[in-house]
Every structure is written in C-alpha cells, then in structure tokens.
C-alpha cells in the first residue's frame, strides 16, 4: 500500500458506509426512534466521514501532523476516539435519566399514598 494516498477502494467503502449511516439516522428519525437532539452528533460524525472520503488530503495532512504510519490507522483511531466519547456521553445521559426516574417514582409513591389516604377518609365520612 502506498502511504502517500488513500486506496480508492477504501475511499469508496468509506463513502458508501457514511451514506448508509446517514440513511439509518434519517430512517430512525422518521420512525421517531431517535430525537433530533441526540441525532445531531451522529449527523456530524457521518459528515466528517464523508469529508474524509471525498477530500483525503485532510487525512493525509493529519497523518503527517500526528506521524501515524497508515492513513487507515488514523481513521480507525479517530472513529475509536469518537465512539469512546459517545459511550461516555451516553453513560452521562443514563445517569441523569435514572436520577429523574428515581424522583418520579418517589413522587408517584407519595401521591399513591395520598390518594389511598383520601379514599379511606372519604369512605369513612360516607358511612
């Protein structure tokens, strides 16, 4: 493999993969399985992938700057870093949700007790 350019096959694969990725995101948005708020970062990722495939020059410059031997390795490295970041942010989102879920459950339990209490008092009065 020539280290000075990106193999056309790899480029085509990258473009096809990114387009497929975009379609999946759009499909999930259409099916309401994904909200716009959480899709932005994925759109950005797909966009960057297309950018790399269409203008490999960017990747070559980055490779020279970071002194990575193979271009593909650099792409993998960046994708891996992105995935790591995404996983961490998803853990954050889950933590926030679990806190909210906890509070909601507690409120529901307190309300249920109040309703039960009121019902008992009402039936007492009607007797």
């Amino acid at each position, binding site marked *: 493999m020539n280290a000075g350019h990106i193999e056309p096959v790899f480029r085509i694969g990258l473009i096809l993969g990114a387009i497929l990725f975009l379609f999946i995101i759009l499909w999930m948005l259409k099916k309401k399985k994904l909200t716009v708020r959480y899709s932005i970062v994925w759109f950005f990722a797909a966009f960057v992938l297309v950018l790399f495939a269409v203008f490999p020059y960017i990747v070559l410059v980055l490779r020279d700057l970071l002194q990575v031997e193979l271009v593909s390795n650099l792409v993998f490295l960046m994708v891996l870093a992105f995935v790591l970041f995404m996983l961490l942010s998803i853990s954050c989102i889950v933590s926030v949700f*679990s806190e909210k*879920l*906890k509070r909601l*459950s*507690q409120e*529901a*339990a*307190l309300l*249920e*007790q109040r309703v039960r209490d009121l019902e008992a008092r009402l039936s007492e009065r009607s007797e």
Partner: protein
Amino acid sequence: MKILVIIPCYNEEENIERVVHRLKRSVRTHELPGTVDYLVINDCSTDSSARICEENGFSYLSNPVNLGIGGTVQAGYLYAVRHGYDIAVQMDGDGQHNPDYLADVVGPVARGELDMCIGSRFIKKEGFQTSFMRRLGINIISVLLRILCGAHVRDTTSGFRASNRQLTEYFAQHYAQDYPEPEAIISAVLEGFRVGEAPVVMAERMGGISSINAFKSVYYMIKVSLSLVVFRLTNSRQKGAAK
C-alpha cells in the same frame, strides 16, 4: 416532637408484620421524646409484602418500580419533610433492629447533641456481631471515613439511624442510590452536620435471606471504598463546617 420511623422493605413477607407489630408494642411501653409514626416503604417487592401491608392496614408507601435501598429510604425522607416530622428514623424491615433501642438512637438527636445518630452494635459489643469478613469490611470503611472526613463512626453500614429536620431535608434532596449508609455519613459530615453513634443491640435477621452474602461483601467493600473516595474527591467541605 414528631418522629417518623421509616422501614424500607424489599421481599420481607416473613418479617414485615412482626417488625411493625414489635415497633408498635415497643412505642407503647417505652418513653420517647415525642409521638412516633411509622412508614413502611415497599420497594416493589416480588413477594406478598405489599398484600401484607394492605391487609394489616399499615401505613405504607409503594414504589411503582424497584429503586433500591437508597431511593427507597429517600422516599421516606421526602415523606417526613412533607409531613413536617422533626426526626426521621431509619429501621430495617428484616427485624435485626430492635425497636426497644429507638429511644437510645433518637435521644441524642432530640436533645440537639447530634444531627444524625447511628445505632451501633460495636460500642458495647453485645448481641449479633455479624461475620468476621463483614466486620472487617465495616472497620475498613470506618477507618476510610475517618481519613476522608474525620467522622468517628464504628458501625458504618448500620441502617438504624435518626436524623433531625435539617439533615432529613438535606437527605431528601441528596442521598446515594447504591451504597447509601456509608456515603450518607460522609455527605452529612462534609455539609457540617454532627454525626455520632449510640450503642444498640442487634439481632440476626428473623427470616428470609440477606441481600449481602460472603462473596458479595468483598465486592461491596471495593465498590463502597471507591464511591467514598470519589465522593470526597468531588465534594469539598462546606464553609463553616466543623472539623
């Protein structure tokens, strides 16, 4: 003075009835610094605990989903705050905490000597002292707490504890979900609350199985230590908090 005894309950069909009746009997026969109410909190038990609470006409909350011990006890603290209780006491639903010692645990808080008083089985060393491994774990947590925040607590995992109104309000907003007992100590101390202990005698649970076995206790230890260290690293001592 209004006192609320919070009894978290998860799959305690063998114990919960006895625990509540024993508490009621004990409250009638002992002198306490105020009126005592209780609240069983059924943490979405999969056994017949919920039915038992209903049939006996117990005062209870029912979590719609399983929250774990932290979220369950916190629901009790929320209830205590909303209903204007002066002291909230936590007592396990498995019968290992003898309600006859309620006055001992509530006393220092009622007299204003402490903001939180923990019932400790290691002061007089009477009654059920638990397994060697667990004692070791509890001691390690105790030393760790002393290093991290200067708290002098021996029975660090004891769930028999009373807190005054200010601390209950604080716990209603901030309470750990996973390993709440030791973390409640460090968070209270860092907020400037006074935390101490009173001697009590504990029994082995009456029936059912404990949620912590031998292997789990080692795993528990590692996770608790980590959570305490992380808590200390991410929380600073409040201004004006006494060392």
